[in-house]
């Protein structure tokens, strides 16, 4: 099993619904977020291009955050989902520094927090909150090892990229372009 997510940049309108849904689903305190929107503008008026991306933890298969965690709080879970065990986290911040995607934040309660791909929902057979809420249906989630999963099917059909592949972390967040 290998969980992954694909983001269709051709459909994403950058509305931030994924951000709010994640906050209310996971009780993320106001002022913090586990996912966010990036807009990249290219060109000169009127020859322009705009790429909009909903970003979050890349749940890398070769995660520097897991490797550098001194207590083992950061670990791989079901299907390669990278998690932080809050009780074991000492809030040292090594993982925050090691993440090329800036996907982690220090929770005010003293531990480091990040996207979990909503593992509590996935285990119940549901989609992550961001995927379920997205009005443009631009997020696809599932098991890459299952050829019938939404994410496998869309990656087979479409051209895609990953972010900062040169970091060698084997990211599992794919952007359809």
């Amino acid at each position, binding site marked *: 099993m290998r969980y992954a997510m694909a983001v269709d940049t051709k459909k994403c309108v950058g509305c931030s*619904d994924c951000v709010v849904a994640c906050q209310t689903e996971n009780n993320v305190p106001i002022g913090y977020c586990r996912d966010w929107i990036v807009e990249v503008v290219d060109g000169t008026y009127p020859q*322009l291009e*705009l790429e*909009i991306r909903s970003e979050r933890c890349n749940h890398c298969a070769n995660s520097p955050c897991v490797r550098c965690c001194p207590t083992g709080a950061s670990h791989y879970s079901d299907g390669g989902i990278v998690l932080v065990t809050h009780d074991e986290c000492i809030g040292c911040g090594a993982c925050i520094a090691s993440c090329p995607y800036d996907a982690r934040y220090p929770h005010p309660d003293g531990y480091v927090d990040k996207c979990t791909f909503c593992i509590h929902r996935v285990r119940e057979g549901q989609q992550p909150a961001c995927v379920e809420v997205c009005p443009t249906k631009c997020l696809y989630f599932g098991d890459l090892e299952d050829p019938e999963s939404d994410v496998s099917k869309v990656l087979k059909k479409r051209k895609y990229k990953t972010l900062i592949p040169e970091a060698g972390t084997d990211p599992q967040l794919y952007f359809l372009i």
Partner: protein
Amino acid sequence: MTYENILIFISNHIMKSTRRDFIKIAAVGAGGLATSGGLFSWARANFFEEVPNAPGMTRTPTYCEICFWKCAGWVYKNEKGEIQKIIGNDEDPHCNGRLCPRGTGGVGMYYDEDRLKTPLVRRTVNGKQVFEPASWDEALDVVAQNLKKVAKEHGPECVALFTHGSGGKFFGDLLKAFGSENITAPSFAQCRGPREVAFLSTFGEIIASPERTDIRDTRCLVLIGSHIGENMHNGQVQEMSDAIDNGATIITVDPRYSTAASKSKYWLPIKPSTDIALLLAWINVIINEEWYDKKYVEKYCYGLEELKNHVKTFTPEWAYGITTIRPDVIYETAREMANASPAVIIHPGRHVTWYGDDTQRLRAVAILNALLGSWGRRGGFYSPEKKDLPSYPHPEFPKPKRTWRDAHPGKYNLALEVVSNDICDSTIPSPDRACNFKAWIVNGTNLIFTLPDQKKTLEAIQSLEFMVVIDTMPMEITGYADVVLPECTYLERYDYCRTDQHREPNIALRMPAAEPKYDSKPAWWIAKKLASKLDLDEYFKWNDIEELLDWQLKKVGTSLEEMKKVGVKKFPREYDDLYFYDDQEIQFNTNTGKIELYSTDLAAEGFVPMPVYTPHEEPQTGFYRLNYGRSPVHTFSRTANNPNLTDLMDENVLWVNPKVAKEWSLKAGQKIWLENQDGVLSTFPIKVRITERIRFDSVYMVHGFGHAEKRLTRSYGKGVSDTELITNVKTDPIMGGTGMRSNFVTFHVEDPHRKEVES
């Protein structure tokens, strides 16, 4: 002195005050009065459903009140009984189980600690006007006495209701029972009015809401200044995404590179205010090339020959000089539309009050759709249906002696709804008017941020004898009220069921997920109590809202009990099909019974029967056209203080083209002040966003920021209010709409307010 006498004394005193000082809410007397117990037994969690896969969670149905799309959803409460999240209802055609960011962030409206907490009554203490907390009984007595006084001295017609939201229906019932039909929503004359009048005069039907655009099945979607995706009109955003998946062509006409423009095959960066020229050139090409749907036009349309002659000279070459859009692009995009015909939508937009000739621009849009045969066709415009719920039995409403139209007879005859700005105008005393408004009831609309020309709005308010504002938040308008009544949020109340049109007729229930916080009350309760104090009980015969809703629901074969379980219920269509069938004989609801390319309605009223292009004002040197729009995370000025939504966006920024920024030596993020063509300065500064996405002759900001009410702690002083800079209003002579895009601003890099003080 009896209690009653004291009240009369107070209200007289209020009326005699010559000036209505703006009062900052709760400037006096902290905290509310004790809540009256027992009143809200109906609201206790006497109904909830355990949620599968979420142990300990319960859910109750609602429909959203953050915007007019009114998506139905479920309010989830955790094991402690606290509202945690709101999730879309899968059965709801408005949202298909997916709420937008504002709906998802609706919890913030409930938790906002800046909410209005208790009724407030304006009183003068030591020569200073202040709001004093009052009990509901006391506050409603003041309202009733003042309304009665106005009715006695001037007639009940001199009371007007401004409303935007579900609760307004109860106040509408109240006002009609009181004897006035002057019930107005700024959503007509400040927003979608021109398109409704234009489509009615062309097709005999309006667009209404949610829009009947069949985007999900379209092959070509043309957006003219409509920024779907930034305006988060949920169903449309969802269907545009489906259309992208299906490979539909999107053509976006906008001086700004909007999100929708970035999803488009063609982006036409038009010179602002020249849209009609482009539309006429498209019509010219489609007629000249004979690309129109001949069978459809011949069978259903009236006035093709007149139109042919009318557009003869409006060639793409002619339009090039006006719009800056190259003739070959105009030609090519016309070809795209014709290729997709009839599955093509020239989108009518929603906020379309721009330049004062808006009804005519929307007529050009309607004509183009008619030529391409998209009205009543799959992928064009479908035929919507709604399930009406019967009104609870009540005596016939009294017939008012006058309406708002009597204020200036003969004006705006084609307006379909009451024109808000006209009520405002007619409130300012003038000897040549038969009717001046003396009292306003304002519910859920912050008129200071809604109506352009704030000076006039304030002048009207100062002319009033009485104003009561019912809102959930201490919006600017509350500061000018005589009585402020705290409404509870949609998560704490029942309202009438949602019965909006859609492909399938459907209704949605809103019920309270929690008891009202503080001493706030639902609109139905306020209206019913007030009715009682105005001796209008017979119009509100139901004992409580559950009885009313259950009675209505049983009339259509369901019940409150069932609706609590399902939230949304669909009904079979009763009238016609979603689309016209081949060779269907159709009698359109127009004077000629046909789709009117040549409008007999407009001709009869003395307007040009077919649209023409008129040049509009252009910016002077050093000034830039002020364009404004929406953010997907905010609704009007309504959500600017919502903790969840301000977390995403807590201020607006000014989009400036890099060339302009260079000329002014502006840096990204620099705070500047704006001054408009009439010398009006922005109260607050705004941060500069330097971006290629805006034309050199315009600037852009999101509407609804720059709040000057300090009790809105999260939004006070954040960004600039576009409304305060909109003082040049171009009124549409056809329907009274307020064109707001002929305003121009220049920049101040130093605080101009400080300069004024020093000199």
